[in-house]
């Protein structure tokens, strides 16, 4: 697809572009990609958001061992590794790191950056239940974030500007959703890998550029005739699917199966819901980012998320579910124990669980397990 080639070119240039913006005085606001940081606030004060979603490589994880014990989530450990290894240019550009604290693994990112780097860190908490007081706490958190961003950039966030960027971000979410839903078709016009690439790019590219790419992709997809499927349809779910962590995707593709829908806590933008209405915009953001966002596994009770995965499995008519999580993400470990029974009962589908520590040596055992699983679900 031409649009995907364009995307690739934009991504290659993005670091240079960010560097230029930074030299022009624009602040680069890094954030953890768990879907609880309203990017709208960053755009509205003239700064540039950049999701820290690099992962999949072993070296940063090893390097992080000097700063954090190995018993924390792999992706979260890797983040201090990327920063202190200094190989990843984006990580060196960050002026302010925003960390919505979702669990202790994410808190480790905030604390390790706070302690070992000179980057200022701003944290706010994300409660683990959905009720009125939790909503209020999250809303207070993003109000504090707004205040912090205004002070940090020296730009007051105006209501019209916020409305404008909300519309922009809604447009991006809407396009991602439209493209994703096309995969419900028995002949999905876009591969899982391409969709994931698009989704990952949305954390890094300029919003207008991203919208242009998504519109082009959509137009091309509408024109083309997709080839018939060669293997089973898979739902890929789990804790984190980082930018660069494509080992599992490659193994699934090698078997001829296709990933037709994904559900992840981190690394994948949540595009199912948009920000609503004209009223209080901060409340509308909290409504979208907290109240209506499908929760990750550290929320309780766990039903909402698990029911959502079952719904996706049914709607996208998948043949099996692959649960891909990073090591020591305990909330996911616990749910992966009782979810297969729920899934089987509701859909008759089977699930394979894979855990990664971003280690190259994993690929052999992963291949055997994925190949066996795909064989068992192949119709």
């Amino acid at each position: 697809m031409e649009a995907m080639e364009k995307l690739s070119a934009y991504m290659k240039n993005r670091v240079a572009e960010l560097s230029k913006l930074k030299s022009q005085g624009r602040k680069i606001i890094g954030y953890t990609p768990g879907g609880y940081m309203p990017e709208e606030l960053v755009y509205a004060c003239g700064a540039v958001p950049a999701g820290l979603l690099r992962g999949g490589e072993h070296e940063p994880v090893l390097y992080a061992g000097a700063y954090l014990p190995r018993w924390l989530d792999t992706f979260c450990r890797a983040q201090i590794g990327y920063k202190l290894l200094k190989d990843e240019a984006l990580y060196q550009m960050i002026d302010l790191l925003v960390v919505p604290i979702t669990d202790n693994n994410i808190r480790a990112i905030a604390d390790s950056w706070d302690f070992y780097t000179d980057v200022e860190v701003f944290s706010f908490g994300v409660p683990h239940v959905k009720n009125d007081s939790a909503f209020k706490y999250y809303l207070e958190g993003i109000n504090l974030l707004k205040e912090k961003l205004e002070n940090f950039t020296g730009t007051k966030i105006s209501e019209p500007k916020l409305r404008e960027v909300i519309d922009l971000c809604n447009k991006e979410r809407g396009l991602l959703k439209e493209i994703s839903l096309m995969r419900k078709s028995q002949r999905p016009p876009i591969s899982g890998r391409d969709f994931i690439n698009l989704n990952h790019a949305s954390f890094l590219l300029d919003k207008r550029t991203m919208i242009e790419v998504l519109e082009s992709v959509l137009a091309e997809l509408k024109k083309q005739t997709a080839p018939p499927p060669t293997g089973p349809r898979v739902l890929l779910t789990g804790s984190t699917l980082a930018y660069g962590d494509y080992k599992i995707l490659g193994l699934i593709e090698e078997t001829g199966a296709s990933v037709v829908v994904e559900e992840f806590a981190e690394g994948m933008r949540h595009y199912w819901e948009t920000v609503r209405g004209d009223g209080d915009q901060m409340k509308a953001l909290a409504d979208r980012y907290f109240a209506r966002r499908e929760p990750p596994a550290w929320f309780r009770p766990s039903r909402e998320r698990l029911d959502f995965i079952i719904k996706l499995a049914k709607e996208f008519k998948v043949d099996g579910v692959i649960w891909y999580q990073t090591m020591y993400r305990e909330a996911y470990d616990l749910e992966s124990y009782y979810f297969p029974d729920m899934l089987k009962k509701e859909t008759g589908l089977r699930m394979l669980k894979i855990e990664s520590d971003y280690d190259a040596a994993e690929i052999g055992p992963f291949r055997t397990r994925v190949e066996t699983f795909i064989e068992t679900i192949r119709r």
Partner: protein
Amino acid sequence: MYTELFKLCGFEPEEIEKERPRIEKAFQKAGIGREDIERAEGRVKRYFDMTSLGVRKGLGIWLEQLIDLMLAREEGKKIVYPDFPTIPMITLALNLASEEVYCQTPEIVLDFVMGQIFGKLDPILEAAEAHGMPPASAMCALKQARLGGILKGIVPMPDLLLGTGFYCDLTPKVDDLLHEIYGVPMVIMDGCMDSGWDEFPEIRPRRVKALAGEIRRAIDESEKVLGIKITDEVLDKSLGDFVGLWTALYGLWDFLKRDPMPMSLVDLAPVWWFSTTTERRGITEGFGVIAALTDEIKKKVDAGVGVVEKGAPRVLIMCHQATDPNVMRMIEEAGLAIPTTALMGVTSAQATSYLETKYTTWEEKVANMLLCHGLYHSTSGLIHRYRELCKTWELDGVLNLYQFSCRAFCISPLLVKKSIEEDPGIPVLSLEGDMWDSRTYSAEALRTRVEAFAEMLRAAKTAKALK
């Protein structure tokens, strides 16, 4: 066959006779046989100071707590399982509110009795490992004890799970599993550790208010599920009793500042653990045990008796080992005094100072008290706490035997090491360990490194004295 064990644990013959039917019922249920009892007799003699009536009575309270826990269902109680970390004032309030309610953290009882006393915890942990908490995933063994104890039928299925989610992420997920699979009602008191790096000891009012709201919600939900009323008088009494217990405990602890250190941390473990899990028996009989221990410790101080040599280097550890007293004994055998832990307070005065607050409602006072400690505040709060302890207790080093399977605690070890080595400038040995499970991190597995650290501290102390 168990008479001798109960006598060792401070029971009078007539008390044993009276309790006999309950003991037999509970031991049968737990699969405790002759071999286990002989092992328990050996363990208590080996690890605890059996010349101390206070220590023996403390162990006895734990044996009784296991029996109470196991028989709670058949004795007609409404059972509530608070989680660890607990909010002890709520546990106490529920126990005080109605004689029909039995509220206790089962995993602590199992760790103390099946672990420390009987050395028989492994099958309970293995049951959890087979049901969602697999080995090699760094799952907290304390939570495995909670799940495994229930699954093995050693402890009854509760009527209410009363969890906390303001520090540990796994705790509420284990309750979530029990809720999903067995339909047990669950209330989780949520919270977010989102304070800024340099904020401690300041605590954002919004954090206090939010946690207070969750505490109030838990009380309201508990009333509904259990059909009881928790009055303001009960709440006030629970807070008063708790502060009273802790003040007495801190008073006892202050004696450990003496040189030579007069009593082992192992021997204070029974009172420390029941002060964190305030079941009715622990709180009512606990004062008596603390008083007995205080009398004994005063005599030891007067006689100049110590558990380690006079002048032994003094170190801080994170927390009492909950299942294997041998780890703390091994540290003492290496010639190190452990006068306190990171989870303990600083002085007896501090226990009451927590109540001097601008907050007025019961739940706000409790929330503020929890956050004041530092551990539940932030990593920087915890570092602050370590520093304060090092200075107040004039420590020579920190033996940071950290809980590898606790994500919340795992953030800090290397940060603590760097911070403490800078200020107050004393050596820190960071050691991976597991206070809830000694299968991998036994005393023998840790001994060589602890001995080398002790040698280094002794040399440093000698060099300092010669200057």
